[in-house]
Protein backbone atom coordinates (compact mmCIF):
# COMPACT_ATOMS: atom_id res chain seq x y z
CA UNK A 1 0.00 0.00 0.00
CA UNK A 2 1.20 3.49 -0.85
CA UNK A 3 -0.75 6.56 0.16
CA UNK A 4 -0.72 9.94 -1.56
CA UNK A 5 -1.36 12.93 0.71
CA UNK A 6 -2.23 16.26 -0.95
CA UNK A 7 -0.35 18.98 0.93
CA UNK A 8 -2.19 22.12 2.03
CA UNK A 9 0.13 25.09 1.90
CA UNK A 10 -0.04 28.87 2.07
CA UNK A 11 2.50 31.66 1.70
CA UNK A 12 5.30 29.21 1.06
CA UNK A 13 4.73 27.14 4.21
CA UNK A 14 3.14 23.76 4.87
CA UNK A 15 -0.24 24.31 6.59
CA UNK A 16 -0.75 22.49 9.92
CA UNK A 17 -3.71 20.45 8.54
CA UNK A 18 -1.21 18.60 6.33
CA UNK A 19 0.44 17.14 9.46
CA UNK A 20 -2.90 15.77 10.75
CA UNK A 21 -3.56 14.24 7.34
CA UNK A 22 -0.15 12.53 7.31
CA UNK A 23 -1.07 11.20 10.78
CA UNK A 24 -4.25 9.64 9.34
CA UNK A 25 -2.18 8.13 6.50
CA UNK A 26 0.21 6.65 9.08
CA UNK A 27 -2.75 4.98 10.83
CA UNK A 28 -3.78 3.35 7.53
CA UNK A 29 -0.21 2.08 7.12
CA UNK A 30 2.15 1.81 4.14
CA UNK A 31 4.48 4.26 2.41
CA UNK A 32 3.38 7.88 2.47
CA UNK A 33 4.03 10.23 -0.45
CA UNK A 34 3.09 13.92 -0.34
CA UNK A 35 2.08 15.96 -3.40
CA UNK A 36 2.88 19.67 -3.36
CA UNK A 37 1.11 21.40 -6.25
CA UNK A 38 1.47 25.14 -6.76
CA UNK A 39 3.70 27.83 -8.16
CA UNK A 40 7.17 28.53 -6.73
CA UNK A 41 6.68 25.84 -4.13
CA UNK A 42 10.26 24.56 -3.90
CA UNK A 43 10.44 25.72 -0.28
CA UNK A 44 7.17 24.02 0.59
CA UNK A 45 8.45 20.77 -0.95
CA UNK A 46 11.64 20.97 1.13
CA UNK A 47 9.59 21.52 4.29
CA UNK A 48 7.25 18.64 3.36
CA UNK A 49 10.27 16.35 2.93
CA UNK A 50 11.08 16.93 6.62
CA UNK A 51 7.65 15.79 7.89
CA UNK A 52 8.03 12.67 10.04
CA UNK A 53 7.01 9.48 8.22
CA UNK A 54 6.99 10.83 4.67
CA UNK A 55 8.89 8.65 2.14
CA UNK A 56 8.68 10.82 -0.96
CA UNK A 57 7.56 14.30 -1.98
CA UNK A 58 6.18 14.92 -5.48
CA UNK A 59 6.34 18.53 -6.66
CA UNK A 60 4.17 19.93 -9.43
CA UNK A 61 5.46 23.48 -9.82
CA UNK A 62 3.49 25.28 -12.48
CA UNK A 63 1.57 28.52 -12.98
CA UNK A 64 -1.56 26.43 -13.70
CA UNK A 65 -1.59 25.29 -10.05
CA UNK A 66 -0.93 28.75 -8.55
CA UNK A 67 -4.31 29.25 -6.89
CA UNK A 68 -5.27 25.60 -6.45
CA UNK A 69 -7.93 25.88 -9.18
CA UNK A 70 -9.69 22.50 -9.06
CA UNK A 71 -10.16 22.41 -12.86
CA UNK A 72 -6.36 22.20 -13.14
CA UNK A 73 -5.28 20.43 -9.93
CA UNK A 74 -7.89 17.62 -9.95
CA UNK A 75 -6.71 16.05 -13.27
CA UNK A 76 -3.13 16.10 -11.93
CA UNK A 77 -4.13 14.38 -8.68
CA UNK A 78 -6.32 11.86 -10.53
CA UNK A 79 -3.52 10.99 -12.94
CA UNK A 80 -0.97 10.52 -10.14
CA UNK A 81 -3.53 8.96 -7.80
CA UNK A 82 -4.17 5.93 -10.04
CA UNK A 83 -0.89 4.44 -8.83
CA UNK A 84 -1.88 4.67 -5.14
CA UNK A 85 -4.11 2.69 -2.78
CA UNK A 86 -5.37 5.86 -1.05
CA UNK A 87 -5.49 9.57 -1.85
CA UNK A 88 -5.94 11.77 1.23
CA UNK A 89 -6.42 15.51 1.62
CA UNK A 90 -7.21 17.67 4.65
CA UNK A 91 -10.89 18.67 4.87
CA UNK A 92 -9.99 22.34 4.39
CA UNK A 93 -11.78 24.54 1.86
CA UNK A 94 -9.17 23.52 -0.73
CA UNK A 95 -9.38 19.82 0.06
CA UNK A 96 -13.19 19.89 -0.01
CA UNK A 97 -13.10 21.78 -3.32
CA UNK A 98 -10.60 19.57 -5.14
CA UNK A 99 -10.94 16.01 -3.86
CA UNK A 100 -14.52 15.14 -4.91
CA UNK A 101 -13.54 16.25 -8.43
CA UNK A 102 -10.62 13.80 -8.21
CA UNK A 103 -12.89 10.99 -6.96
CA UNK A 104 -15.31 11.46 -9.86
CA UNK A 105 -12.43 11.47 -12.37
CA UNK A 106 -11.32 8.15 -10.84
CA UNK A 107 -14.95 6.89 -10.90
CA UNK A 108 -15.03 6.17 -7.16
CA UNK A 109 -17.08 7.48 -4.24
CA UNK A 110 -15.27 9.67 -1.72
CA UNK A 111 -15.34 9.31 2.05
CA UNK A 112 -15.56 12.82 3.52
CA UNK A 113 -14.15 14.12 6.81
CA UNK A 114 -13.03 10.92 8.48
CA UNK A 115 -12.40 11.16 12.23
CA UNK A 116 -10.89 7.70 12.70
CA UNK A 117 -9.26 4.86 10.80
CA UNK A 118 -10.74 1.45 11.69
CA UNK A 119 -8.72 -0.48 9.08
CA UNK A 120 -7.20 0.19 5.65
CA UNK A 121 -10.66 0.24 4.05
CA UNK A 122 -12.98 1.23 6.92
CA UNK A 123 -13.38 4.67 8.46
CA UNK A 124 -15.63 6.60 10.81
CA UNK A 125 -17.19 9.94 9.89
CA UNK A 126 -19.79 12.22 11.43
CA UNK A 127 -23.16 12.71 9.70
CA UNK A 128 -26.18 14.86 10.64
CA UNK A 129 -23.94 17.61 12.04
CA UNK A 130 -22.18 15.13 14.30
CA UNK A 131 -25.41 13.77 15.79
CA UNK A 132 -24.55 10.34 14.37
CA UNK A 133 -21.29 8.61 13.49
CA UNK A 134 -21.22 6.36 10.42
CA UNK A 135 -18.72 3.55 9.87
CA UNK A 136 -18.06 3.39 6.12
CA UNK A 137 -16.19 0.76 4.12
CA UNK A 138 -14.77 1.41 0.66
CA UNK A 139 -13.99 -1.26 -1.95
CA UNK A 140 -12.63 1.29 -4.41
CA UNK A 141 -9.31 0.52 -6.11
CA UNK A 142 -8.18 4.00 -5.03
CA UNK A 143 -9.76 5.15 -1.78
CA UNK A 144 -10.32 8.92 -1.91
CA UNK A 145 -10.68 10.46 1.53
CA UNK A 146 -10.75 13.87 3.22
CA UNK A 147 -9.49 14.03 6.80
CA UNK A 148 -10.94 16.11 9.63
CA UNK A 149 -7.87 17.53 11.35
CA UNK A 150 -9.31 17.37 14.86
CA UNK A 151 -9.60 13.56 14.61
CA UNK A 152 -5.84 13.00 14.37
CA UNK A 153 -2.90 14.35 16.38
CA UNK A 154 -0.42 16.07 14.07
CA UNK A 155 2.83 14.26 13.23
CA UNK A 156 6.11 16.11 13.82
CA UNK A 157 6.95 18.72 11.18
CA UNK A 158 10.63 17.83 11.50
CA UNK A 159 12.61 14.61 11.57
CA UNK A 160 12.00 13.12 8.13
CA UNK A 161 14.26 13.23 5.09
CA UNK A 162 12.15 12.27 2.10
CA UNK A 163 13.31 12.34 -1.49
CA UNK A 164 11.88 15.19 -3.58
CA UNK A 165 10.83 14.43 -7.15
CA UNK A 166 9.43 16.82 -9.75
CA UNK A 167 6.35 15.65 -11.61
CA UNK A 168 6.09 17.19 -15.05
CA UNK A 169 2.46 17.00 -16.05
CA UNK A 170 0.84 20.42 -16.37
CA UNK A 171 -2.90 20.60 -16.79
CA UNK A 172 -4.40 23.92 -17.69
CA UNK A 173 -8.02 23.21 -18.42
CA UNK A 174 -8.54 26.84 -19.48
CA UNK A 175 -11.99 26.87 -17.88
CA UNK A 176 -11.35 29.06 -14.88
CA UNK A 177 -9.14 31.85 -13.72
CA UNK A 178 -8.25 33.48 -10.45
CA UNK A 179 -9.63 37.01 -10.06
CA UNK A 180 -8.64 37.97 -6.54
CA UNK A 181 -8.95 37.30 -2.85
CA UNK A 182 -9.62 39.16 0.36
CA UNK A 183 -7.84 37.38 3.17
CA UNK A 184 -8.32 38.25 6.80
CA UNK A 185 -5.12 39.54 8.39
CA UNK A 186 -4.52 38.58 11.97
CA UNK A 187 -1.55 38.18 14.30
CA UNK A 188 -3.50 35.69 16.38
CA UNK A 189 -3.11 31.92 15.96
CA UNK A 190 -5.12 30.21 13.24
CA UNK A 191 -8.51 29.01 14.54
CA UNK A 192 -8.12 25.34 13.64
CA UNK A 193 -4.59 25.11 15.10
CA UNK A 194 -4.97 27.26 18.25
CA UNK A 195 -4.68 25.70 21.73
CA UNK A 196 -7.24 28.14 23.12
CA UNK A 197 -10.24 29.55 21.24
CA UNK A 198 -12.47 32.38 22.48
CA UNK A 199 -15.74 32.60 20.53
CA UNK A 200 -18.55 35.13 20.57
CA UNK A 201 -22.19 34.79 19.59
CA UNK A 202 -25.28 36.91 19.18
CA UNK A 203 -24.91 37.98 22.81
CA UNK A 204 -21.98 40.20 21.76
CA UNK A 205 -24.66 42.56 20.32
CA UNK A 206 -22.39 44.15 17.69
CA UNK A 207 -19.03 43.84 15.95
CA UNK A 208 -17.42 46.55 18.05
CA UNK A 209 -18.00 44.56 21.25
CA UNK A 210 -15.77 41.77 19.89
CA UNK A 211 -12.88 44.00 21.07
CA UNK A 212 -13.45 42.53 24.54
CA UNK A 213 -12.82 39.04 23.11
CA UNK A 214 -9.78 40.13 21.07
CA UNK A 215 -8.23 41.63 24.15
CA UNK A 216 -8.91 38.49 26.25
CA UNK A 217 -7.60 36.30 23.41
CA UNK A 218 -4.37 38.28 23.17
CA UNK A 219 -3.73 37.79 26.87
CA UNK A 220 -4.35 34.02 26.52
CA UNK A 221 -2.56 33.59 23.16
CA UNK A 222 -5.91 32.43 21.78
CA UNK A 223 -7.67 32.55 18.43
CA UNK A 224 -11.08 34.24 18.13
CA UNK A 225 -14.08 32.51 16.59
CA UNK A 226 -17.79 33.22 16.27
CA UNK A 227 -21.12 31.49 15.99
CA UNK A 228 -23.13 31.53 12.77
CA UNK A 229 -25.56 33.97 14.38
CA UNK A 230 -22.74 36.49 14.94
CA UNK A 231 -21.46 36.07 11.37
CA UNK A 232 -24.92 36.29 9.80
CA UNK A 233 -25.60 39.44 11.82
CA UNK A 234 -22.48 40.95 10.23
CA UNK A 235 -20.55 41.34 13.53
CA UNK A 236 -17.48 39.53 12.12
CA UNK A 237 -16.36 37.99 8.78
CA UNK A 238 -17.22 34.45 7.65
CA UNK A 239 -13.72 33.02 8.14
CA UNK A 240 -14.30 33.23 11.92
CA UNK A 241 -17.34 30.94 11.91
CA UNK A 242 -17.09 27.80 14.03
CA UNK A 243 -19.70 25.13 13.30
CA UNK A 244 -21.00 22.40 11.04
CA UNK A 245 -20.51 24.48 7.91
CA UNK A 246 -17.73 26.69 9.24
CA UNK A 247 -14.52 25.61 10.90
CA UNK A 248 -14.24 22.51 13.07
CA UNK A 249 -12.05 23.13 16.10
CA UNK A 250 -10.93 20.98 19.04
CA UNK A 251 -8.63 23.12 21.19
CA UNK A 252 -7.48 22.43 24.75
CA UNK A 253 -9.78 25.20 25.94
CA UNK A 254 -12.86 26.63 24.20
CA UNK A 255 -14.50 29.67 25.77
CA UNK A 256 -18.01 30.31 24.39
CA UNK A 257 -19.17 33.84 25.18
CA UNK A 258 -22.79 34.86 24.56
CA UNK A 259 -23.35 31.73 22.46
CA UNK A 260 -26.62 29.86 23.02
CA UNK A 261 -25.30 26.58 21.61
CA UNK A 262 -27.29 25.71 18.46
CA UNK A 263 -26.70 22.15 17.19
CA UNK A 264 -24.77 23.40 14.21
CA UNK A 265 -22.37 25.37 16.43
CA UNK A 266 -21.85 22.43 18.81
CA UNK A 267 -20.94 20.29 15.77
CA UNK A 268 -17.92 22.53 15.28
CA UNK A 269 -16.51 22.58 18.83
CA UNK A 270 -17.82 19.75 21.00
CA UNK A 271 -14.58 17.77 20.69
CA UNK A 272 -12.70 20.52 22.55
CA UNK A 273 -10.94 19.22 25.69
CA UNK A 274 -12.38 21.77 28.10
CA UNK A 275 -15.40 23.92 27.30
CA UNK A 276 -16.29 27.08 29.22
CA UNK A 277 -19.61 28.82 28.63
CA UNK A 278 -20.40 32.36 29.72
CA UNK A 279 -24.03 33.27 29.14
CA UNK A 280 -26.63 35.22 31.07
CA UNK A 281 -29.37 32.72 30.14
CA UNK A 282 -28.94 29.77 32.45
CA UNK A 283 -31.23 27.66 30.22
CA UNK A 284 -28.91 28.07 27.18
CA UNK A 285 -28.13 24.65 25.61
CA UNK A 286 -24.41 25.48 25.60
CA UNK A 287 -24.36 24.69 29.35
CA UNK A 288 -25.25 21.05 28.53
CA UNK A 289 -21.85 20.51 26.94
CA UNK A 290 -19.79 22.95 29.04
CA UNK A 291 -17.35 21.66 31.67
CA UNK A 292 -17.54 25.00 33.44
CA UNK A 293 -20.57 27.22 33.08
CA UNK A 294 -20.81 30.79 34.34
CA UNK A 295 -24.22 32.46 34.35
CA UNK A 296 -23.27 36.12 34.11
CA UNK A 297 -23.41 39.28 32.01
CA UNK A 298 -20.56 38.82 29.55
CA UNK A 299 -19.75 42.55 29.55
CA UNK A 300 -18.81 42.25 33.23
CA UNK A 301 -17.40 38.71 33.19
CA UNK A 302 -15.08 39.00 30.18
CA UNK A 303 -13.10 42.06 31.38
CA UNK A 304 -12.83 40.47 34.85
CA UNK A 305 -11.62 37.20 33.30
CA UNK A 306 -9.02 39.13 31.32
CA UNK A 307 -7.75 40.72 34.52
CA UNK A 308 -7.49 37.43 36.42
CA UNK A 309 -5.81 35.15 33.87
Amino acid at each position, binding site marked *: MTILVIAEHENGAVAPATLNTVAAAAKIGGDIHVLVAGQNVGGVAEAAAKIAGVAKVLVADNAAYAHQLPENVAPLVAELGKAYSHVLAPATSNGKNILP*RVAALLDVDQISEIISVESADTFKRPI*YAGNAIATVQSNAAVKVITVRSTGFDAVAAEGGSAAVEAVGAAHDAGKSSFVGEELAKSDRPELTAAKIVVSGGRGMQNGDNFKHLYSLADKLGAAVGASRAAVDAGFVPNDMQVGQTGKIVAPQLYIAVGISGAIQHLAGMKDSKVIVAINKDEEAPIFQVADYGLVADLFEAVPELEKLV
Partner: protein
Amino acid sequence: MKVLVAVKRVVDYNVKVRVKADNSGVDLANVKMSMNPFCEIAVEEAVRLKEKGVATEIVVVTIGPATAQEQLRTALALGADRAVLVECADELNSLAVAKLLKAVVDKEQPQLVILGKQAIDSDNNQTGQMLAALTGFGQGTFASKVEVAGDKVNVTREIDGGLQTVALNLPAIVTTDLRLNEPRYASLPNIMKAKKKPLETVTPDALGVSTASTNKTLKVEAPAARSAGIKVKSVAELVEKLKNEAKVI
Protein backbone atom coordinates in the same frame (compact mmCIF):
# COMPACT_ATOMS: atom_id res chain seq x y z
CA MET B 1 -29.98 31.35 -20.38
CA LYS B 2 -31.28 28.18 -18.82
CA VAL B 3 -30.45 27.44 -15.17
CA LEU B 4 -30.66 23.96 -13.66
CA VAL B 5 -31.05 23.74 -9.87
CA ALA B 6 -30.58 20.45 -8.02
CA VAL B 7 -32.32 20.02 -4.65
CA LYS B 8 -32.43 17.29 -1.99
CA ARG B 9 -35.14 16.14 0.40
CA VAL B 10 -33.63 15.82 3.88
CA VAL B 11 -34.65 15.66 7.53
CA ASP B 12 -35.73 19.18 8.55
CA TYR B 13 -32.88 21.09 10.18
CA ASN B 14 -34.89 21.61 13.38
CA VAL B 15 -35.30 17.88 14.00
CA LYS B 16 -33.00 16.25 16.53
CA VAL B 17 -32.22 12.94 14.83
CA ARG B 18 -32.08 9.58 16.61
CA VAL B 19 -29.97 6.59 15.68
CA LYS B 20 -31.96 3.34 15.22
CA ALA B 21 -31.51 0.70 17.92
CA ASP B 22 -30.06 -1.80 15.43
CA ASN B 23 -27.43 0.75 14.29
CA SER B 24 -28.59 0.47 10.68
CA GLY B 25 -29.09 4.19 10.28
CA VAL B 26 -31.01 7.22 11.48
CA ASP B 27 -34.71 6.80 12.31
CA LEU B 28 -36.70 8.59 9.60
CA ALA B 29 -40.16 7.31 10.56
CA ASN B 30 -42.62 10.17 11.18
CA VAL B 31 -39.87 12.76 10.95
CA LYS B 32 -40.50 16.11 9.27
CA MET B 33 -38.76 16.33 5.88
CA SER B 34 -37.82 19.55 4.08
CA MET B 35 -35.69 20.93 1.31
CA ASN B 36 -32.01 21.00 2.31
CA PRO B 37 -31.28 24.61 3.46
CA PHE B 38 -28.35 25.04 1.04
CA CYS B 39 -30.66 23.91 -1.80
CA GLU B 40 -33.21 26.58 -0.83
CA ILE B 41 -30.42 29.13 -1.27
CA ALA B 42 -29.67 27.59 -4.71
CA VAL B 43 -33.32 27.95 -5.78
CA GLU B 44 -33.41 31.55 -4.49
CA GLU B 45 -30.27 32.46 -6.43
CA ALA B 46 -31.75 31.07 -9.66
CA VAL B 47 -34.98 33.00 -9.09
CA ARG B 48 -33.02 36.22 -8.50
CA LEU B 49 -31.09 35.61 -11.74
CA LYS B 50 -34.42 35.28 -13.54
CA GLU B 51 -35.76 38.45 -11.91
CA LYS B 52 -32.64 40.29 -13.15
CA GLY B 53 -33.32 39.04 -16.66
CA VAL B 54 -30.16 36.91 -16.72
CA ALA B 55 -31.91 33.54 -16.53
CA THR B 56 -34.77 32.77 -18.90
CA GLU B 57 -35.83 29.37 -17.60
CA ILE B 58 -35.30 27.56 -14.29
CA VAL B 59 -35.48 23.77 -14.25
CA VAL B 60 -35.38 22.14 -10.81
CA VAL B 61 -34.31 18.50 -10.44
CA THR B 62 -34.18 16.10 -7.52
CA ILE B 63 -33.10 12.51 -7.14
CA GLY B 64 -35.11 10.68 -4.53
CA PRO B 65 -38.31 8.87 -3.62
CA ALA B 66 -41.77 9.78 -4.99
CA THR B 67 -42.35 11.93 -1.89
CA ALA B 68 -39.56 14.27 -3.03
CA GLN B 69 -42.20 15.76 -5.34
CA GLU B 70 -43.09 17.92 -2.29
CA GLN B 71 -39.69 19.61 -2.43
CA LEU B 72 -40.00 20.06 -6.21
CA ARG B 73 -43.41 21.72 -5.71
CA THR B 74 -41.82 24.00 -3.11
CA ALA B 75 -39.15 25.01 -5.64
CA LEU B 76 -41.85 25.60 -8.27
CA ALA B 77 -43.73 27.79 -5.80
CA LEU B 78 -40.55 29.78 -5.19
CA GLY B 79 -40.21 30.52 -8.90
CA ALA B 80 -38.81 27.52 -10.81
CA ASP B 81 -40.56 26.92 -14.15
CA ARG B 82 -40.61 23.14 -14.34
CA ALA B 83 -39.37 20.12 -12.42
CA VAL B 84 -37.75 16.75 -13.02
CA LEU B 85 -37.90 13.90 -10.50
CA VAL B 86 -35.39 11.11 -11.00
CA GLU B 87 -37.27 8.55 -8.94
CA CYS B 88 -35.16 6.25 -6.90
CA ALA B 89 -36.27 4.57 -3.68
CA ASP B 90 -32.78 3.90 -2.33
CA GLU B 91 -30.51 6.47 -0.73
CA LEU B 92 -27.74 7.00 -3.28
CA ASN B 93 -24.14 8.03 -2.77
CA SER B 94 -22.80 11.27 -4.26
CA LEU B 95 -21.15 9.78 -7.35
CA ALA B 96 -24.39 8.08 -8.46
CA VAL B 97 -26.29 11.34 -7.87
CA ALA B 98 -23.67 13.24 -9.90
CA LYS B 99 -23.95 10.71 -12.75
CA LEU B 100 -27.74 11.07 -12.80
CA LEU B 101 -27.43 14.87 -12.76
CA LYS B 102 -24.92 14.62 -15.63
CA ALA B 103 -27.55 12.76 -17.67
CA VAL B 104 -30.07 15.52 -16.91
CA VAL B 105 -27.49 18.20 -17.85
CA ASP B 106 -26.86 16.42 -21.18
CA LYS B 107 -30.57 16.52 -21.91
CA GLU B 108 -31.35 20.04 -20.64
CA GLN B 109 -28.12 21.80 -21.73
CA PRO B 110 -28.21 24.49 -19.00
CA GLN B 111 -25.62 27.29 -18.96
CA LEU B 112 -25.49 27.30 -15.17
CA VAL B 113 -26.11 24.53 -12.64
CA ILE B 114 -26.64 25.62 -9.03
CA LEU B 115 -26.51 23.15 -6.12
CA GLY B 116 -26.23 23.42 -2.35
CA LYS B 117 -22.66 22.94 -1.09
CA GLN B 118 -23.68 20.04 1.12
CA ALA B 119 -26.73 18.17 2.34
CA ILE B 120 -27.30 18.42 6.08
CA ASP B 121 -27.98 14.66 6.40
CA SER B 122 -24.93 13.00 4.82
CA ASP B 123 -22.72 16.12 5.23
CA ASN B 124 -20.63 14.93 2.26
CA ASN B 125 -20.00 18.16 0.31
CA GLN B 126 -19.22 16.23 -2.91
CA THR B 127 -22.01 16.27 -5.52
CA GLY B 128 -21.37 19.65 -7.17
CA GLN B 129 -17.64 19.02 -7.52
CA MET B 130 -18.30 15.53 -8.92
CA LEU B 131 -20.84 16.86 -11.41
CA ALA B 132 -18.23 19.44 -12.48
CA ALA B 133 -15.72 16.63 -13.09
CA LEU B 134 -18.20 14.54 -15.09
CA THR B 135 -19.39 17.44 -17.27
CA GLY B 136 -15.94 19.00 -17.53
CA PHE B 137 -17.38 22.36 -16.41
CA GLY B 138 -15.61 24.84 -14.16
CA GLN B 139 -16.78 24.90 -10.52
CA GLY B 140 -17.41 27.77 -8.11
CA THR B 141 -17.99 26.09 -4.76
CA PHE B 142 -19.11 27.67 -1.43
CA ALA B 143 -20.38 30.76 -3.27
CA SER B 144 -21.24 33.96 -1.42
CA LYS B 145 -21.71 36.03 -4.60
CA VAL B 146 -22.54 35.06 -8.20
CA GLU B 147 -22.31 37.51 -11.12
CA VAL B 148 -22.95 36.45 -14.70
CA ALA B 149 -21.08 38.65 -17.20
CA GLY B 150 -21.24 37.69 -20.89
CA ASP B 151 -19.94 34.16 -21.39
CA LYS B 152 -18.42 34.03 -17.92
CA VAL B 153 -19.61 33.87 -14.33
CA ASN B 154 -17.65 35.45 -11.48
CA VAL B 155 -18.05 33.52 -8.25
CA THR B 156 -16.89 34.81 -4.86
CA ARG B 157 -16.15 31.83 -2.62
CA GLU B 158 -15.98 31.48 1.17
CA ILE B 159 -12.57 29.92 1.85
CA ASP B 160 -10.69 29.21 5.10
CA GLY B 161 -8.73 32.47 5.02
CA GLY B 162 -11.52 34.78 3.80
CA LEU B 163 -12.96 35.24 0.32
CA GLN B 164 -11.69 34.23 -3.13
CA THR B 165 -13.12 35.26 -6.50
CA VAL B 166 -12.77 33.09 -9.60
CA ALA B 167 -14.02 33.60 -13.16
CA LEU B 168 -15.50 30.53 -14.84
CA ASN B 169 -16.38 29.95 -18.48
CA LEU B 170 -20.04 29.08 -19.01
CA PRO B 171 -21.49 26.53 -18.73
CA ALA B 172 -20.42 26.23 -15.09
CA ILE B 173 -21.33 24.67 -11.74
CA VAL B 174 -21.97 26.79 -8.64
CA THR B 175 -22.49 25.45 -5.10
CA THR B 176 -24.03 27.74 -2.51
CA ASP B 177 -22.81 28.79 0.90
CA LEU B 178 -24.96 30.25 3.68
CA ARG B 179 -24.48 33.92 2.92
CA LEU B 180 -25.22 33.89 -0.82
CA ASN B 181 -28.78 35.12 -0.18
CA GLU B 182 -31.75 34.85 2.16
CA PRO B 183 -34.38 32.60 0.64
CA ARG B 184 -37.93 33.99 0.39
CA TYR B 185 -41.09 32.26 1.52
CA ALA B 186 -43.55 30.99 -1.08
CA SER B 187 -46.79 33.00 -1.24
CA LEU B 188 -50.12 31.20 -1.22
CA PRO B 189 -51.04 32.18 -4.82
CA ASN B 190 -47.62 30.89 -5.96
CA ILE B 191 -48.13 27.62 -4.08
CA MET B 192 -51.45 27.22 -5.92
CA LYS B 193 -49.85 28.08 -9.27
CA ALA B 194 -47.02 25.62 -8.63
CA LYS B 195 -49.49 22.74 -8.61
CA LYS B 196 -50.13 23.35 -12.30
CA LYS B 197 -46.47 23.63 -13.37
CA PRO B 198 -45.01 20.63 -15.29
CA LEU B 199 -43.30 17.89 -13.27
CA GLU B 200 -41.71 15.05 -15.20
CA THR B 201 -40.68 11.73 -13.61
CA VAL B 202 -37.85 9.60 -15.00
CA THR B 203 -35.92 6.57 -13.68
CA PRO B 204 -32.16 5.97 -13.46
CA ASP B 205 -32.62 3.08 -15.92
CA ALA B 206 -34.24 5.39 -18.46
CA LEU B 207 -31.26 7.73 -18.10
CA GLY B 208 -28.90 4.78 -18.63
CA VAL B 209 -27.05 5.35 -15.35
CA SER B 210 -25.78 2.68 -12.95
CA THR B 211 -26.21 3.72 -9.31
CA ALA B 212 -23.66 1.30 -7.83
CA SER B 213 -21.31 2.70 -5.17
CA THR B 214 -17.84 1.83 -3.92
CA ASN B 215 -18.91 2.84 -0.40
CA LYS B 216 -20.94 0.81 2.05
CA THR B 217 -22.19 2.06 5.43
CA LEU B 218 -21.56 -0.71 7.95
CA LYS B 219 -23.20 0.93 10.94
CA VAL B 220 -24.45 4.22 12.36
CA GLU B 221 -23.99 5.00 16.05
CA ALA B 222 -24.86 7.82 18.39
CA PRO B 223 -21.80 9.97 19.20
CA ALA B 224 -20.13 9.75 22.59
CA ALA B 225 -22.23 12.00 24.79
CA ARG B 226 -20.59 14.93 26.47
CA SER B 227 -22.02 15.39 29.92
CA ALA B 228 -22.67 18.77 31.44
CA GLY B 229 -20.05 19.88 33.93
CA ILE B 230 -20.50 22.26 36.82
CA LYS B 231 -21.69 25.83 37.19
CA VAL B 232 -19.18 28.17 38.77
CA LYS B 233 -20.33 31.13 40.84
CA SER B 234 -17.76 33.71 39.89
CA VAL B 235 -15.03 34.57 37.42
CA ALA B 236 -12.47 34.02 40.18
CA GLU B 237 -13.73 30.47 40.75
CA LEU B 238 -13.66 29.83 36.98
CA VAL B 239 -10.03 30.96 36.72
CA GLU B 240 -9.10 28.84 39.76
CA LYS B 241 -10.70 25.73 38.18
CA LEU B 242 -9.06 26.34 34.81
CA LYS B 243 -5.66 26.76 36.44
CA ASN B 244 -5.74 24.02 39.07
CA GLU B 245 -8.35 21.46 38.02
CA ALA B 246 -8.39 21.49 34.20
CA LYS B 247 -4.82 22.86 33.99
CA VAL B 248 -5.46 24.48 30.62
CA ILE B 249 -4.24 28.01 31.38
